[in-house]
C-alpha cells in the first residue's frame, strides 16, 4: 500500500522579473512516507525555502504536480489550501513568527481554537505540549518575555497542536545560539518520532541534516538524495 504523504512530480518554479526569468526549481521529484524524517540542505538561495513553501501550500509551483497528505495542491482553491494548512501541515520557521499580543499558551492553542472553535479544548491540548517543550511555567508569557529558544519551542508546540501529518521546518535553529539550537533540534525530532509525524527540515546545519533518516541536497534547482 502506498502511504506517501508527500509526492512531488516534476515540480518547477520560475520567478519572473522585468530583467529575467529565474528558474529556481527545475523538476523536483520527491516522495516521503508517513513518519519519514527528512532533511534538505543546499546553498543559500538555491530554493529550499521555496520548495518548503510549495509543500506547505503557501506558494504554488509553476508546473508539476504536488500532492501532500492526499490533497492535490497544484490546483487547490484558496479555501481548500486554508483547510489543508490548518489540518495537514504544521510550520516551524527560522523566525518564530509568534503573534506578539498572544501569550505562549494562546499562541500554541490558536490553530486548534481556529479549527474547532472550542477554546477550552484547544487549551487542554496546548498545555501538555507546552509542558513537553519545557514551558509549563511560561504559559502566560508573551513572546517579548521569552528567550529566542523558548519562542522557537512555543512555535514547535504550535506546529504540533493539530496533530498534523507533516511538519515542515525551515531552518528552525537558524536564529538560535548553540545551546538553544540543540534543545530545539532535539525536541523537533523527538516529538516528530513520538507522534509518527513526517518531518521535513530545511537546514544549513549538517549535524541536524544528518540526524534525519533521509537526506536530500538541493543544488542548481535539482533535488538529490544522498
Amino acid at each position, binding site marked *: 500500500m502506498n502511504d506517501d504523504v508527500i509526492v512531488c512530480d516534476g515540480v518547477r518554479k520560475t520567478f519572473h522579473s522585468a530583467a529575467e526569468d529565474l528558474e529556481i526549481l527545475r523538476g523536483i521529484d520527491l516522495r516521503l512516507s508517513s513518519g519519514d524524517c527528512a532533511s534538505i540542505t543546499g546553498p543559500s538561495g538555491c530554493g529550499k525555502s521555496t520548495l518548503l513553501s510549495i509543500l506547505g501550500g*503557501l506558494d504554488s509551483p509553476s508546473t508539476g504536480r504536488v500532492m501532500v497528505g492526499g490533497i492535490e495542491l497544484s490546483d487547490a482553491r*484558496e479555501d481548500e489550501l*486554508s483547510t489543508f*494548512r490548518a489540518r495537514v501541515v504544521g510550520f516551524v520557521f527560522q523566525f518564530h*513568527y509568534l*503573534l506578539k499580543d498572544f501569550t505562549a499558551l494562546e499562541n500554541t492553542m*490558536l490553530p486548534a*481554537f481556529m*479549527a474547532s472553535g472550542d477554546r477550552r479544548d484547544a487549551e487542554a491540548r496546548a498545555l501538555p505540549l507546552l509542558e513537553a517543550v519545557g514551558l509549563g511555567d511560561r504559559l502566560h508569557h508573551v513572546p517579548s518575555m521569552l528567550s529566542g529558544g523558548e519562542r522557537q519551542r512555543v512555535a514547535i508546540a*504550535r506546529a504540533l497542536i493539530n496533530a498534523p501529518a507533516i511538519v515542515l521546518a525551515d531552518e528552525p535553529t537558524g536564529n538560535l545560539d548553540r545551546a538553544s539550537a540543540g534543545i530545539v533540534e532535539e525536541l523537533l525530532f523527538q516529538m516528530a518520532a513520538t507522534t509518527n509525524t513526517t518531518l521535513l527540515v530545511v537546514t544549513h546545519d549538517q549535524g541536524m541534516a544528518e540526524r534525519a533518516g533521509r537526506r536530500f541536497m538541493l543544488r542548481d534547482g535539482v533535488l538529490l538524495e544522498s
Partner: protein
Amino acid sequence: MKGAPILFVASRFFAGRRNAAGTRDQARKALVGAVLSIALSLVPLITVMQVADGMIRGITARYVELGTYHAQAVPYASADLVGARDAARNAPGVTGAWIERQSVGVVFAHGAREGAIIRGVEQGFVTDPSTLEYLRVVSGAATIEKPYDALVGSAMARKLSLNAGDTVNLITIRRNQSGVMIPRVSILTVRGVVSAGYRDLDAQWLFMRQETAARLLPPENTRSFVGIKAADPFKAPAAARDAVSGHLPPGFSVYQWKDIQRNLFESLASTRTMLLLIMAITVAVAAVNVSSALTTLVLERGQEIAVMKSLGASPADLARIFSLGGAALGALGAVLGAAGGLLVSVRINQILAGLERILNMLRDLSARLSGGLSPAQYRILDPAYYLETIPVHIPFAEIAVVVIAAVGLSFVAALGPARRAAALSPLDGFRKR
C-alpha cells in the same frame, strides 16, 4: 473559522497589549484616533440634531398654540362665525374653538410707534391651558375682559416702554365709501405684557377682544376665522381639521396648521436637514479615518496576517476579522459620541450661557485694556431670531439611527483594508519582517 476565534483574534489585533515600553504601536494609536474621530464627529451631529429639533419644535409649538391654532375654519364670505365656533366646540375631539379677527395697525405710546399685528381674540383663548403653556405673563395679567383692554408682546412693550396699566393709541386705516383712506385712533389700556419666548412673535402681537376688533378694524383688511384646537398637534397634525369636518355650517373651509404656515415650517425643516447633512459629512470623514487606521494596522500586521494564514485562517476569516473590527471601532466611537452628544444636548443651555459669560468677560477685559467702552453683551443665539432657551428634546429614535449609520459606515470603510488583509499572500507577509 468560527465566531469565537474570530472575535478572540480580532480583540487582540485591535485592543492588544501594551508593548514592553508601555506604549501602543502606531496602528493602535491610529485606531484610537479613529474611534475618537467617530466620537467627536457624532457629538456636534447629535447636538445639532437636538438643538434643531428643540428649536423647531419650540418655535412650531408657539406658532401652533399661539398663532395658527391647530386648525382654522375660514369663512368664504360673511358666514356665521359664532355658529361655526359653537359647532366646532361641540365636535368630538375638539378641546377649544375661538373666534379671531386679525388685521394690522400702528401702535403709538410714549412718543414711539410700532407696526403691529392686531389680534382680536376671545378671553377663553388667552386663558386656555394650551395657550398659557407658551404665553408667559411678564407683567400685569392675561386678561382682556373690558372692551378696550389689550395685551402686548414683550418685545413691543420694550420698544414702546409699555407696562401694564399704560394706555396706547392704536391707529387703523379705514376706507370710506368714496375710497378715501381714513385713519382711526383708538385708545387701549394695556392689561398685561406677555411673551411667547420668541421675539419674532413678541415684537408684533397686540391682543384685544374680538368684539372690539370687529368694530375697530377695517372689515376689508381683516381676516376673521374660527381657531380650533384638538389633541397633540404634532402626533396628529390633521386631528383638529378632521374633528370639525362635517360639523361646521356651510361656507367654511378648514385648514390644518401645517398648511397655514407651510413656508415657515418647510423652511425650518429644510434648514435642519441641511445642517444635518453638513454634520453627516464629518461622520463620513471620520469613517475614512477608520479605513486609514485599519490600512495602517493591516500593513503593520502583515507578518501576523501571514502567520494566521499559515495556521489555516482563510481569506474570508481575515476579511471578517478586519471588517468586524472596523464595525466595532465604529460602534465604540458611536457610543462614546452619542453619550457625549447627549451630555452636551441636555446641558446645551448651561453650556451656551457659560460660553457667553466667558466671551463677554473677554470682551469686557479687552475693552478695559484698550480704554474703550464695553460693547453690548454678546449672545451666541440671539433671541431676536431664536428661542430664549433651547427646549431640550432628545430624539432617541434618530440618535439610534445615527449610531447604526456610524457603525454601518465604519463597516463599509473597513471593507477595503479587510479585502487587503484577505488578499495578502502569506509569503509577502513573511517578507515584511
